[in-house]
Each structure stands twice: as C-alpha cells, then as structure tokens.
C-alpha cells in the first residue's frame, strides 16, 4: 500500500518538523512518497529525502506552485493520485486549504487533524474542540488525511531516498498571489517549540505583551496568545493557540492572563506541564494547570523572568 505525503514547503524551504511528524504518522500506512512543490523545491526535496521512512521524493518545480495556491496544487495531487491509497499532509493551514479540495475532486471524504492511526481505514480525530475523541472508519477507496503534528514525534534524519523531478499539471489559472505579511522572528516556531509562553486579554496591551516576550526569551520559548489577545491587537494572528489557531504540545506551556476557555484549551491541553498565572483563583485555566499561581501578572511575570 502506498502513501503520498504532501511536504510542507514555504518559499522553497522545507518545514522539516511538520513534515517529519507527518512521515511518522504515515509510516504505519505503507511506503511513503513525499511530494515537494514550489517555484524552487530542489533543496526541500533533498532534505525531505533524508527523513527516516521516506521511500521516494517527487519534486514538482514550477512557478505556479510558488505560493502553494490550493487550485494548482490540488490538481497536481489528483494527477498523481492513481498510484496511492492514502494521500496525507501535516495539518497546517496550507494543507487544510488544499486537502479537502483534493478529496472532493476524488469524490472522497477528508479526515482532518487525525491524531492516531488505528488501521489503514480507521483513524482517530478530535471533535468539539477536543472535548471528544472520535474514531472513524472510511469506506472510501482513497483516504485523504491531515495529521495533527502535536501528537506525533518527528521522524529522524537517517534516510537517503531517491528524488525524482516531475512535471507540472495544467495551470487552472483561477487565482493569483498578491503578497505575504510574515513576521520573521529568532524565536522557536510555535508548533515545534519545547516551551511556549502565551498571553491573554489580561496582558492588556500590545506594549505590555513585552512582559510575555521577555519571559519567553528567558526560557527560549515561542510566544503564543489567546484569541482575545489577538482580536484586541496585542498579538499577531499567527500566535493564536486554540481550536481555530495552532495546536501545541510543548514540554512546558505557561498561560498568563488567560482564563482557559475550552476553545483555548483545545490548542494546549496536551502540553506536558502547564503553568497558569492568573489573578482570578476561579479561572478555569487552573483546572488543567499542573502549577497554578494566583497573582497579578504584572508583578509575577517580571519577577519570574528575573529569577530564572
């Protein structure tokens, strides 16, 4: 049984952690062929070829794949689909844009955010913001899946798969890229960081978010935020953790000035150790916290930062 795995490639660069976690998840299903796409993708393909468990890498280099618009990438995947029973990807925003389109073109259901593989047609996934875990069995001939990175360990880097260049599929010419607004940061990436420090509405302003960032930098952590903090303009959208933001499971998650709504818990409750700092002792975040500190964050966080 063969698996086609869409690698996460952004502007020619492989998102190794996300891709390698999906390779682990897909390994249980059969031989994994990785598909790398981009305006340039030779480097990404070469790196993907080193991931343990990858049997082969296909490299589709063409300007139409440069910004990974859903329509051309979905058409490319469908053109290759004949050889594969499983078509999978890490559950990134790119893949969530592309994979349901692939599934509909193949007349099959998609399974999003899969957290465990039971067998070749049976998979577990969270529903209701992770308040229930559901196991579903697909009756479709092909299974189209996105895997939630937070629940799989990244595959190692001892592989040496072959790389084959493939041509582009026809350009559907339905959409075009205008611009990206991407903040660059020296901090670890949110979904792969070992430590995450998140701030909520309690932080109060964009300026005061620096308190959160200082603690994060002390811990070599990524910075996260609640929806309320993002909506209020304290933090950019790509920091949002939760049901509709990023799902993280670091070794240590520090929630500061966050009440702990189920939609936020959905994105962090599988973290190994959770610390909550909140001035309201009744805040629901304390129900999931291993260590809770009832305190004003403006006192506690700078104190913590200086003492660590």
């Amino acid at each position, binding site marked *: 049984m063969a698996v086609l795995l869409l690698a996460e490639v952004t502007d020619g660069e492989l998102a190794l952690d996300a891709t390698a976690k999906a390779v682990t998840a897909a390994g249980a299903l059969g031989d994994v062929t990785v598909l790398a796409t981009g305006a340039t993708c030779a480097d990404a393909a070469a790196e993907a070829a080193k991931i343990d468990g990858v049997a082969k890498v296909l490299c589709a280099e063409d300007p139409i794949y440069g910004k990974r618009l859903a329509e051309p990438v*979905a058409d490319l995947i469908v053109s290759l689909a004949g050889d594969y029973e499983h078509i999978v990807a890490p559950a990134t925003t790119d893949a969530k844009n592309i994979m*349901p389109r692939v599934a509909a073109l193949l007349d099959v*259901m998609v399974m999003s955010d899969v957290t465990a593989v039971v067998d070749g047609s049976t998979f577990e996934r969270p*529903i209701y913001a992770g308040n229930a875990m559901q196991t579903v069995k697909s009756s479709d001939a092909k299974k189209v899946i996105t895997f939630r990175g937070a629940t799989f360990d990244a595959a190692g880097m001892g592989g040496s798969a072959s790389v084959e260049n493939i041509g582009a599929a026809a350009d559907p010419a339905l959409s075009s890229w205008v611009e990206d607004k991407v903040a660059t940061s020296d901090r670890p990436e949110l979904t792969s960081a070992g430590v995450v420090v998140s701030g909520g509405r309690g932080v109060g302003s964009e300026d005061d978010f620096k308190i959160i960032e200082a603690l994060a930098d002390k811990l070599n952590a990524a910075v996260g935020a609640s929806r309320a903090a993002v909506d209020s303009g304290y933090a950019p959208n790509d920091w949002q953790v939760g049901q509709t933001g990023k799902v993280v499971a670091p070794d240590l998650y520090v929630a500061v000035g966050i009440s702990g709504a189920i939609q936020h818990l959905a994105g962090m409750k599988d973290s190994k150790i959770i610390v909550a700092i909140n001035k309201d002792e009744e805040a629901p975040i304390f129900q999931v916290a291993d260590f809770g500190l009832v305190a004003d964050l403006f006192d506690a966080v700078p104190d913590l930062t200086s003492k660590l």
Partner: protein
Amino acid sequence: MKVIVPVKRVIDYNVKVRVKADGSGVDLANVKMSMNPFDEIAVEQAIRLKEAGKADEVIAVSVGVKQAQETLRTALAMGADRAILVIASDDVHTDIEPLTVAKILKGIIDEEQPGLVLCGKQAIDNDMNATGQMLSALMGWSQATFASELDIDGDSATVTREVDGGLQTIKVNMPTVVTVDLRLNEPRYASLPNIMKAKKKPLDEKTAADYGVDASPRLEIVNTVEPAARAAGIKVGSVDELIEKLKEAGAV
C-alpha cells in the same frame, strides 16, 4: 450578484459537551443549539456586501435536520433575504458530512447562479474545516479560505487569509467560494423588529433527493470517547515556589 451563505446548526459554543455513554457521539438532546459562530461571520459579511451595493440578494442555506429552520430564521433576522432548508436527516444526532453538504450546495448553486458563496471556515462540532474547499472543487471555482479581509471588485476578489506564517493576500476569479475566519467582522445581533420580520421571509424546504444527492456517510463512527483527563495539579504560593516546582519537574 446573489450571495449564498451556508449555515449550520451546532451545539452552542458555550455549552460543555457530554459524550454519550454508548460511544455513538455527543449528546445533543435538550442542549442549546445555535448558528455555527463562523457562519454568523459569513452572514454578516454577505449583508454588508448587500448594504455596500455589491450584492443584490443574500440566500441562507442549511443542510441538516428540520430544526435547522431556527438557524435560518436567525440568518433572516440578521438580514438575509430568503432561505433554503435542505432536510438530509430526521435524527438530530446525524452529522451530514462536508462532502454531502458540498454536493447539495452545488445543486443549489446550479439553480441559483450566485457570484459568491461565503462559508464559515469550520464547524465547531466536527471541526472538519472542509465544506467550502470541497464545494469550490466540485464547482471548478477558485477558493479563498480563512479570510480576514475581503474586497470584491468586478470579476475578481482580493482576499487576505490568516495562515500559519501570518497573513497572505491573494486575488481570485469570480465566482468564488470564500471561507471566513474570526477576524473578518463582528456579527450584528438581530433586533426584535427584524426577528418579527424574518418570520415572514420566504423559507423553502427541500430534501437531499431533490438535488439527486445520496446523503449516506463515507465515514462510519466507530466510537466516541471523552479525551484523557489531566491529573489534578497544585496551586503554588509564590514565584519562588513555582521555580522550585518547575526545577523538580525538570521543566526549567
């Protein structure tokens, strides 16, 4: 231009869900149901397009059980012009899969010929994040998912999308399917007079069979369980004690 807005009846986002003892799913009997929050944002955006003179008619569509009538009345009270209810099940516990919903929506689009479909990016019950993309695929249209800004200009639309790296702006050919994210707008509340008026707005009832769609699921539910609970933690009295505990746990 007509705008179609699919809306889903889901458990209210404030309700704590309970998994049914028989493992078949989440208990939906006698719990508060509401419009999927993302769909409210889609309805709001459609109404704003009409108010801005960019859309002529807003049609709300729901696929599901008969009770989804209430959800459609909410959309009508917010300002949609008419509604179509497609009954695809008589059991409130049956979730109609995104592929089926997309096929039914395609049937409606073939009849109504809208220039735009505005969907919520995901339903907060099955969290599948798929219907809009699937519909776009079946139509052979462009798609713009996770929209936080939308600007329609003649035969194209410029859409800013919330993505993992930040924001991406793309331009899509019309007609198109746009799925909306949280920060596109803040939906209005329906006023009492508008709620009264909504009762008189047209609401057509159809069935999946009217569109020749077989609504049987592709995914069989094997089991539904509560997630593993976290072991209870402790409260610490000071920053120093917190650091001590974190050191003991090897976390710092």
